[in-house]
């Protein structure tokens, strides 16, 4: 499954990193970056959690 991140919406809360460290990181200003945009089934829960808690609604999980 694909992960999409709209970084210009990001408010640097870091909640995606807490939810899925394997998928998200933050740059020097705290703005989220994707470590990978393709995730296997084992990471889907974490990404879904990230999408749900992201205050800026900047994360989307796209099913193929």
């Amino acid at each position: 499954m694909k992960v999409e991140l709209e970084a210009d919406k990001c408010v640097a809360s870091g909640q995606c990193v807490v939810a899925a460290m394997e998928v998200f990181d933050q740059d020097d200003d705290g703005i989220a970056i994707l470590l990978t945009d393709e995730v296997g089934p084992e990471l889907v829960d974490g990404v879904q959690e990230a999408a749900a808690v992201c205050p800026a609604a900047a994360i989307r999980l796209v099913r193929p």
Partner: protein
Amino acid sequence: MADTLAGAAHGGADTVPEFPMPRAARCPFDPPPALKELQEKGPLTKVRLWDGSEPWLVTRYAEQRQLLGDPRVSADTDRPGYPTKASPEAGEGKLSFIMMDDPEHARLRRMVTAPFAIRRIEALRPAVQRIVDGLIDDMLAGPAPVDLVEAFALPLPSLVICELLGVPYDDHEVFQGNTKTMVHRDATPEQRGAASREIAAYLAALVGKRLADPRDDLLSSIAERITAGEIDHREATEMALLMLVAGHETTANMIALGTAALLQHPDQLALLRESDDPKFVASAVDELLRYLNITHLGRRRAVTEDIEIAGQVIKAGEGVIMVNEIANRDPEVFEDPDRLDLTRDARRHIAFSFGVHQCLGQPLARMELQVVYGTLYRRIPTLRLACALEDVKFKHDAFIYGVHELPVTW
């Protein structure tokens, strides 16, 4: 005129309830019963504030999240309809970017986000653990009973935010006393104004010092933005003030109020005392944040364009109040919401709000609370109240809910 509008929507101006509502004396941890009744009736309702104005009160989780994430909902206190007046910032200028909208808000906020990145916060964890252990050592070495607020709950976040900002903790009298006045609901606008001016003057001088002689702290990086011509000295001071004030009362009250609540729920307290699983502690912290909601008076906003929501139209120029305390007890989202259950998944709570204004310090607050809740009860397993719960003075009179004092012994 406001009465006619509200009357049309609700079948009589007399039915508009006053906000805020009192809590039931018997349960200081639950939201006011009247608030829960409103939530049962529907997601939106008009309420009357002390000044006679009638903003919308949003009582349910889904609608709160939707509105807090909507760019037509403004945090600018100067907008028509903004439900204001009885507020810590009343009578004063804006408390930096939390009272601005994008793009200005985002521009200023991004200047101070770096130290709150998860990895940077995690790097602070050992230092926070040392501070927590040191404060507990001091408590155990001293006489009991002791006031947990004074001995532990307030010094911890204060020491940490001072360290992060580069404010000498030795000056804590200046900012702790004044912060207390700024968040006191019964303080007059003049008193709040004077308190915030006093801290601001102190911080302005400190920013000046860091301008001349930068160090490795947040004040210096804010001062750098002045040098770069991105902000002026006044904006820098406001930003520093926001960081300092926001870091104080909030975490302190979560620690003390959380302890009071846990002591009333010994089975839940035992779970924390017996667990050494950081994942469980992190999730327990979220449940405590959900259950307690120290920002009990909600987030206030002004609506800038008509918004249709939950079968209602909120008109441009009307105010909205989103009380997270009641959203986090929404049975649609949290099963059996009035039960404190440290084993539940409460991660989606909005204790830190939602949308672009969500608390910037939340990673720091979460980490501090994880260290505290994971340490305090393990190190003092016999910790208990030194008075009856009925005698604990709760902060019904403050913008940030909590306890004035928490006498404990062990």
